[in-house]
């Protein structure tokens, strides 16, 4: 029982506890180490004495004490170079209010992790690790790197934050224009990395809940920022469709073939609220157009409704005008193939250098699909093979393998 309770408390409150510790002690490593210490003590204590009534509060209190011990030890050791004044212990005060025991500091931690002084390729990894509590191995997989390289990247980023004196305050609204962009794109990358695998193992449920909570928090703190509302909407639309992404045999179902009846009406309604808010503020940003594409798809009521390909294509046309981005080119070609046919789509991606996109799964999967539809069986088979060699997630691999097997003459 202790193990399950710990796992549940870790998933539900891990990010929040680490964020609260980091905000209090202004030290990411100390927060992580103290939380790990609390978890290891819980793993020993809970099976013997039973799970506490408030497991998260228990973990937070123990972690807080462990961090205070570390502070004291450092003070003794570093008498020549003393740390700046340490925060006052407030454990006693906190003991009295159980509900409010863990302060909500995740937003603050996100601004720290996504600081422009942190290397861009470290921001999402750091956010996934500290704010969402993903394991090193999970993050390394998502970023196509190995555990050691990722660990080094995180260590470098945390040292930079500490030694360069990155602020732990949420910046004032006057700084949002330059700070918010990094936060939103980091959350986007973090979400898409963890979202890629359609099968979404058990781990995903906790992560998705975390991303919904974080974007909801941002949206409520910044009701007048169109792009914040748009991101909250995008993540809700995407999560709403999760239940319909997998076929019974475990292969992925493309968006246009998903049964809208299986989408979460509740999340879609929630998404529409953010969507309406974003549109009322008005902004021509790419993120708003991406939100509209999600909204178009989630407007479908059943499989009998025609897929909104034409409107989706118009949105991608606008997007292509705003940013020269190969992902947009590829996604636009998917819609173009449905509206004008596969030949038009092949012409649209002809400008992409095949060598540069040789290892880019969406490109190979699209190319395979388009070649198959134009009757180029040999070309399609080769492209499916290249796509499958890129080791897609289980659900995508099954889908691609089935499409390859269905090629005439295969």
């Amino acid at each position, binding site marked *: 029982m202790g193990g399950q309770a710990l796992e549940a408390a870790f998933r539900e409150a891990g990010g929040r506890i680490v964020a609260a510790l980091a905000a209090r002690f202004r030290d990411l490593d100390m927060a992580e180490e103290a939380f790990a210490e609390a978890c290891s003590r819980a793993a020993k204590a809970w099976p013997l004495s039973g799970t506490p009534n408030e497991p998260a509060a228990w973990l937070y209190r123990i972690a807080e004490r462990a961090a205070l011990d570390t502070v004291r030890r450092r003070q003794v050791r570093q008498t020549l170079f003393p740390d700046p004044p340490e925060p006052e212990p407030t454990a006693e005060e906190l003991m009295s209010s159980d509900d409010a025991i863990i302060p909500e500091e995740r937003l603050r931690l996100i601004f720290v992790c996504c600081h422009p002084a942190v290397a861009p390729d470290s921001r999402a990894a750091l956010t996934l690790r500290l704010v969402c509590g993903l394991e090193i191995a999970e993050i390394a997989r998502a970023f196509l790197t190995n555990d050691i390289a990722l660990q080094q990247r995180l260590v470098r980023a945390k040292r930079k934050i500490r030694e360069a004196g990155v*602020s732990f305050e949420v*910046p004032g609204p006057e700084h949002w224009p330059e700070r918010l962009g990094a936060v939103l794109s980091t959350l986007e990358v973090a979400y898409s990395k963890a979202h890629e695998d359609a099968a979404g193992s058990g781990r995903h449920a906790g992560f998705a809940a975390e991303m919904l909570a974080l974007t909801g928090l941002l949206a409520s703190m910044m009701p007048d920022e169109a792009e914040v509302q748009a991101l909250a909407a995008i993540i809700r639309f995407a999560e709403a469709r999760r239940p319909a992404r997998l076929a019974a045999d475990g292969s992925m179902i493309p968006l246009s073939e998903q049964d809208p009846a299986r989408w979460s009406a509740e999340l879609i309604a929630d998404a529409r609220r953010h969507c309406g808010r974003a549109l009322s503020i008005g902004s021509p940003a790419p993120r708003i157009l991406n939100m509209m594409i999600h909204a178009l798809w989630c407007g479908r009521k059943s499989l009998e409704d025609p897929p909104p390909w034409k409107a989706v294509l118009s949105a991608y046309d606008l997007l292509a005008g705003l940013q020269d981005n190969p992902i947009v080119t590829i996604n636009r070609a998917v819609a173009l193939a449905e509206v004008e046919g596969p030949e038009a789509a092949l012409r649209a991606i002809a400008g992409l250098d095949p060598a540069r996109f040789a290892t880019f799964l969406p490109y190979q999967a699209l190319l395979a699909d388009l070649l198959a539809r134009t009757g180029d069986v040999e070309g399609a088979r080769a492209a499916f093979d290249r796509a499958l060699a890129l080791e897609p997630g289980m659900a995508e691999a099954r889908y691609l393998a089935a499409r390859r097997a269905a090629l005439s003459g295969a």
Partner: protein
Amino acid sequence: MQYMLLIYENEEIFGGPEKNGPIMAEVGPKHFAFIGEMGAARLGGAGLKGTAFATTVRTENGQQAIHDGPFAETKEQLGGYYLIDVPDLDAAIALAKKVPLGRDGAIEIRPLIPMPPGMTR
């Protein structure tokens, strides 16, 4: 005349960007002796933490961008400095963005190595 002595060394020998390795333990006291020797000739000075802890505010065509890491171009040369004492990096960045420039340029923000108690810059 006033002069600035800029110290260039391979930072890697100092045991990481915190510069708290054995070489620093060896060179540190020599600096303190040198400070004594300079007497009134010395107006100030400090050790800098390594470039891994640097942040740069770059201005290009009037656009400012903040990035992780040291100044890395070769077409510009060191032309001046300000020594500031502010609560955190964000405050340092805010001031760095206001440093007047002729045209394009960069302001590299480097944290100082703290001085031992009793020593002044």
